[in-house]
């Protein structure tokens, strides 16, 4: 079955970010989104370690060890960017100043709950980072995640089974198979990959889905 690659998922999520938006990209998959921001839009990336206006990864030879993103990868600063301390970085998050946080997740519920901080594996210590702050604070939360686990289980569930990060906050979900909105009437499918029909998508999804009247095919360029 043809499905979106991780980079194509990132590309798709990037297309929905409005010109002028202040955006935090979560660690992992969402970080890839920065590579696909539409060139004709000015989008200001925020990092919780005190940066607004992050640019692309540095060119070889231009790396600065004091300039890293939230995933601790090397980054750059655009003209117009600014540095500030951690407390102001989270003031921006918690105070609702970010237009959008694009987060990864283990599971999403049909009411927009998100679980992305622990799988409760007793062998490894849990970590939360800025996940709860972002999920509770940004004006809008969208999530990018694989539709199913490697074992085929649905990550889009009636209720999250892993511990919650925040409840009822997710508005849009990008998966390798579909784009789905969380609405007051439940999950509404906006886009599906061409190789799948709605009932096949529903079969791969624990939560109940509705198909939007104006649904489209989910397509992304080869990347």
């Amino acid at each position, binding site marked *: 079955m043809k499905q979106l690659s991780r980079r194509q998922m990132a590309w798709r999520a990037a297309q929905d970010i409005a010109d002028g938006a202040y955006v935090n990209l979560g660690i992992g998959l969402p970080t890839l989104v920065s590579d696909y921001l539409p060139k004709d839009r000015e989008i200001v990336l925020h990092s919780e370690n005190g940066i607004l206006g992050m640019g692309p990864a540095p060119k070889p030879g231009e790396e600065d060890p004091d300039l890293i993103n939230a995933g601790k990868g090397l980054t750059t*600063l655009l*003209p117009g960017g600014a540095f*500030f301390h951690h407390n102001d970085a989270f003031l921006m998050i918690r105070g609702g100043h*970010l237009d959008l946080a694009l987060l990864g997740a283990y599971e999403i519920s049909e009411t927009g709950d998100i679980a992305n901080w622990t799988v409760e594996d007793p062998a490894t210590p849990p970590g939360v980072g800025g996940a709860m702050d972002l999920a509770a604070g940004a004006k809008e939360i969208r999530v990018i995640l694989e539709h199913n686990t490697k074992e085929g289980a649905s990550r889009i569930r009636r209720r999250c089974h892993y511990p919650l990060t925040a409840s009822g906050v997710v508005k849009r979900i990008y998966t390798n198979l579909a784009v789905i909105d969380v609405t007051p009437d439940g999950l509404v499918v906006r886009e599906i990959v061409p190789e799948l029909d709605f009932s096949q998508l529903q079969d791969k999804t624990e939560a109940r889905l509705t198909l939007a009247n104006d649904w489209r095919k989910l397509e992304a360029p080869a990347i």
Partner: protein
Amino acid sequence: MIDKRVKDLASAVAGIKDGATLLFAGFGQVGEPVELIQALLEAGVRDLTVAANNSGTGEVGLAKLIRERRVRKLICSFPRTSDSHCFEAAFAEGAIELELVPQGTLSERMRAAGAGIAGFYVRTGAETKLAEGKETRMIDGKLHVLERPLRGDVALIKALKGDRWGNLVYRKSARNFNPVMAMAADLVIAQVKEIVELGALDPECVVTPGIFVDRVVEVGR
């Protein structure tokens, strides 16, 4: 493209509605966005609630707005200063309501609004008249007052320089309430002496990052 620059003062204050809650920066006249307040006056809005440290000086800025009876209520730490006769006259007539707030609490309540803090406990004002009617709580053996966020529909602020992303720097003690008010309103309008090119402000020294600012207007002073 992000371009928060607006062409003139009238555009800068466009859309501010009667009955709005406004935050006016400044400490006395220093850092007070006098030109923006004048433009607001000319725009004719009224029935305003204004949070500001003082009540205006002489007959300009906030003082003039009060003289013209546009301000229904003032939230303020120190309304009576060397030349606050406009406020004093309105107050004596009962034409303006006053909510007196300790200066640090005024500032912290606005920060709370900007920082997603729904309430906080402080010692300031505990066991005083200004805490009357407020919820209190013993914490670590001392009485604390629960203070709530103070949010503006609009903040009018003044800075030295700004760029098209809305990044701002200030000058000396004219910084005062400007950065905190910039965090605490739905619409933040900054007058600046000079608009500079994007990238001209040192990213280590930007005081108000552009994320907090919606409009920037150059006033040349």
